[in-house]
């Protein structure tokens, strides 16, 4: 599981030995085979290895810890049922995050109060950081955080995939089930939007 745990950035990943990557992939395929054979301990070791990244992505998309837990739970159930569909064409973590992405967007659609359109979200007042958040993070970090929260789930998804999850643009496109061009334009839109918000607040 070392391969999926390690934050392999695409470029850094290229520097790693090809043999090691191949071993990781073999390991992941074997693990998914065990899950496909209904081995419960295999699902638990998958969660132990990838749970943090799966949960972080679900939380980034939903912005709601309770909903994120539901999404992860539903994702694990979906993995249990479709584990045999993982053929090792790409990294396991990208395949897993694709399921999280699909599940989270479905959950957001089901909760209309939470799934505001980007236009509507833009008109919302920035989420006020809690007092303890203010204490532990400096003012600028809070500004960035609240600006991030004003982006739509799709735009936050691209940022999270490219930065924290270390996905290449192609992998991010596969996770979001959209063309690479869309990932690029979302990145560009997120940049403009965040820069606009942050410069405006700086002026004030």
């Amino acid at each position: 599981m070392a391969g999926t745990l390690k934050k392999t950035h695409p470029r850094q990943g290229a520097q790693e030995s090809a043999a090691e990557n191949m071993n990781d992939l073999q390991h992941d395929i074997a693990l998914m085979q065990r899950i496909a054979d209904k081995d419960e301990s295999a699902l638990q070791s998958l969660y132990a290895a990838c749970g943090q990244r799966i949960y972080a992505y679900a939380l980034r998309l939903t912005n709601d810890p309770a909903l994120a837990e539901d999404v992860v739970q539903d994702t694990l159930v979906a993995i249990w049922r479709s584990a045999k569909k993982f053929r090792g064409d790409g990294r396991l973590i990208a395949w897993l995050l694709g399921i999280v992405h699909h599940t989270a967007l479905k959950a957001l659609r089901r909760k209309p109060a939470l799934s505001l359109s980007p236009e509507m979200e833009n008109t919302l007042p920035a989420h006020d950081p809690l007092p303890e958040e203010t204490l532990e993070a400096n003012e600028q970090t809070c500004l960035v955080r609240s600006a991030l929260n004003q982006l739509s789930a799709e735009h936050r998804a691209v940022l999270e995939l490219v930065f924290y999850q270390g996905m290449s643009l192609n992998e991010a496109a596969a996770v979001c089930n959209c063309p690479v061009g869309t990932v690029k334009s979302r990145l560009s839109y997120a940049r403009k939007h965040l820069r606009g918000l942050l410069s405006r607040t700086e002026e004030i």
Partner: protein
Amino acid sequence: MNVHDPDTIALYAAGQLTADEAAAVESHLTDCADCQDELAFWRELGAEINTSSAALPPPPDLAERALKQIHAPSPLQRAWRQSAALLRSQFVLVRREMWAAAAAFMVLVVIMALLSDHTGFLTGLAPMLAAATLAAIYGPQNDPASELALATPTSPWKILLARLSIVSAYNLVLSLAASLALLAIIPADLLGSIVLAWLGPLAFLSALALLLSLWIGTANAITICYAAWLLHYIQPSEIFGAWAPSLQVWDAFLTVYRQFWESPILLLGLSAAVVALALVSSNFPEQVINQRRA
């Protein structure tokens, strides 16, 4: 690739450029303040995303919760299991002597029909037997466990529906078996019309007996149902023929009334409505006089 482009800097900050492209961007960065500013923005954003995502420990029990959900039966399976359990539990609560008594009565009916070579015994008596059995399936007069049943989380209408299903199914089987036995005296192609002749009345009388037993008690329910059923056999003009000119209205009514008992579809539709009414009224104990009378 245009190195002096915010989108290029974004890809550089995200580590998405090849080594050659990254080197080109780096050499451009040394003497472009705008792009340095751009990179600083992305570094800050990336740091915030990375720290906030890494700061969140995943709930430890989610794998167990998912496995529990995986092992949980589907809603349909659960509904089937609950229904089967309810039917089993109610089956033992129906008065035990009812099964044997009803079967013995039906055997008698078949014997009489065979001896007299007359199917009217079956079509006339099967609905009455069914009404009697259904009038006695619910309420404190008939069910020693009814107080207990009322205190269980299963709602009264479900209990009633379960018993109704069990006893009605039994009545149907008995009557069908009796109809088959009558094949000894009737041609096979008449079987369908025999079944239709008792099916509608059986369903409607059963439903009526059930509803009335909830409202006014078992004995009253049986009396009223039997009166309603036997009424359609009466021929007043034959009995009181000599001084009967004023009975013509009554005669006309009885003609319509007999047609009513001979319309299976109408009777089945009405039975469904009456059963629905009985199920609803079983949920309002205050209105169910019978239950308070013990």
